[in-house]
């Protein structure tokens, strides 16, 4: 059995802190942990991980289309035991319904999340409440409203069709 004491310690402390707000916790392998929490517990969990486990670095935020819901992963890094030890990647996940996707923004706790939340907003239409500026980061000017390219129902042909409509209108 591989030693995962530090990983286990983090998960146990989250269990104690969150209670039933912790939906699922998985110790995948050394240095890889996946935790799912309720969306309302998201900001306090990020703050707890930052302050109690030195997880100050958000590597990126990934959106995943799960059918009726959108899963959003916040890939956090840190939790060194000493200056030379290795880091742990904790992928913190919350889901939100596709019909009205909303999650609290974590930018107040980790300012480095600011562009990643904008990117997920562009690609999946998730509104991060409390984000300073969710204006388009990646999609071009004149991109059709409510066309979220990484959602599964937006096939490449569908996207092509929608864009040609907009371009046709502009001529």
């Amino acid at each position, binding site marked *: 059995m591989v030693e995962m004491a530090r990983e286990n310690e983090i998960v146990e402390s989250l269990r104690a802190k969150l209670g039933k707000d912790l939906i699922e916790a998985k110790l995948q392998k050394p240095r890889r942990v996946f935790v799912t929490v309720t969306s309302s517990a998201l900001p306090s969990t990020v703050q707890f991980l930052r302050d109690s486990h030195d997880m100050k670095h958000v590597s990126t935020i990934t959106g995943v289309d799960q059918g009726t819901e959108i899963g959003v992963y916040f890939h956090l890094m840190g939790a060194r035991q000493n200056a030379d030890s290795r880091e742990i990647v904790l992928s913190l996940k919350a889901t939100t319904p596709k019909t009205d996707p909303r999650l609290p923004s974590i930018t107040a706790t980790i*300012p480095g999340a600011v562009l*990643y939340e904008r990117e997920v907003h562009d690609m999946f239409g998730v509104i991060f409440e409390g984000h300073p500026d969710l204006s388009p980061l990646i999609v071009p000017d004149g991109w059709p409203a409510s066309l979220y390219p990484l959602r599964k129902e937006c096939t490449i042909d569908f996207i092509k069709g929608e864009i040609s409509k907009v371009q046709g209108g502009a001529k």
Partner: protein
Amino acid sequence: MSESTFTVPVGPQHPALKEPENLTFSVDGERVVDVKIRLGYVHRGGEKAFEVRNYNQGLYLVERICGICAMAHQLCYANNIEALHGIMVPRRADYIRTVIAELERIHSHLLWVGVAGHEIGWDTLFMYTWRDREVVLDLMELATGNRVLHATNAIGGVKRDLTPEMISKISKGMKHLEERVRYYAAMIPQEKTIMKRTVGVGILKPQDAVDLCAVGPTLRASGIKRDVRRDDPYSAYDETPFDVITHGGCDVASRVLVRVGELFESIKIVNYASEHLPSGPIRVKVPINVPAGENVSLVEAPRGEDIHYCKSNGTDKPERYKVRAPTLANWASMATMLRGGYVADIPIVLAAIDPCMSCTDRMAFTDVSANKQWYWTIEELRRYSANWHGK
């Protein structure tokens, strides 16, 4: 902002490099007060494209995210898919991957030092480092068959072995480059042309670098010791001795010095890994269908931490493939570095994170005599390629 503030749009034509993004500066006289970032001018929908290609096709697509850190992206991808398969690649392949990845870092850092020289109007340095960079590119061609887009990795190992002749040529090349880098390391801190334009320019304080989640040489030049090769080792980095280079100056000069220091470390790693190549096979066979699961994979690309996430569903295509290249991670810090600085320093501060916006998504053809220009779509390009190969 006060009445004396003006708005200056910069871009999408890049003020420093040959790639597009848009920055809206608020300036008060010669001072930058604020900046707003707009990206996506060369967004090619890569993440969507992974979902409609099988894992082997993805291996080639992922390289094309970036021509400079092609190896870093492909290695991150291969690690990711191998982890989902639950396999370990042969140790010899790990060492070969380490050699190629560090050769790539040497090429990227030499390229960058040249570009930095160019941005401050000193093109001699650009000529020097790009001449030296040819040595690495030739070694890349020798070892992988290609100067860029090396196609080194397979899912399950590497495609080409390193022969003793190759290793001796690599070692000779490293010896030459070590001398050259020693020259740069001695010259740069004494060279007024560089120091006057970079010391105290584009300040990123350690606390800001951490809060804004900066990565790579940009972060390490603010004195923070973080490097994926040490913090989350992959390939042969857990067995290879090297130092993580940091500098406390927090300015563009520090970003130059960190990269020069890293050149020495990369040469050290290339030498060590090529001298300690374990014997054995270089590749294991893996099925095309990947078991359902999810995995996060990280690599220290030349510009910093590169992170990929993959969700597989048991088929030969990923359910979701996410890529975050290091440049995006450093954009958030960029605004902080530019604020309070001079307009004239914008190009070198921008260049100092070594930004890579990506390459173009289609090919443009120009017929000068007919004064005509047209584009090929990927389908037309594919058809042309199929016909050409069919001949």
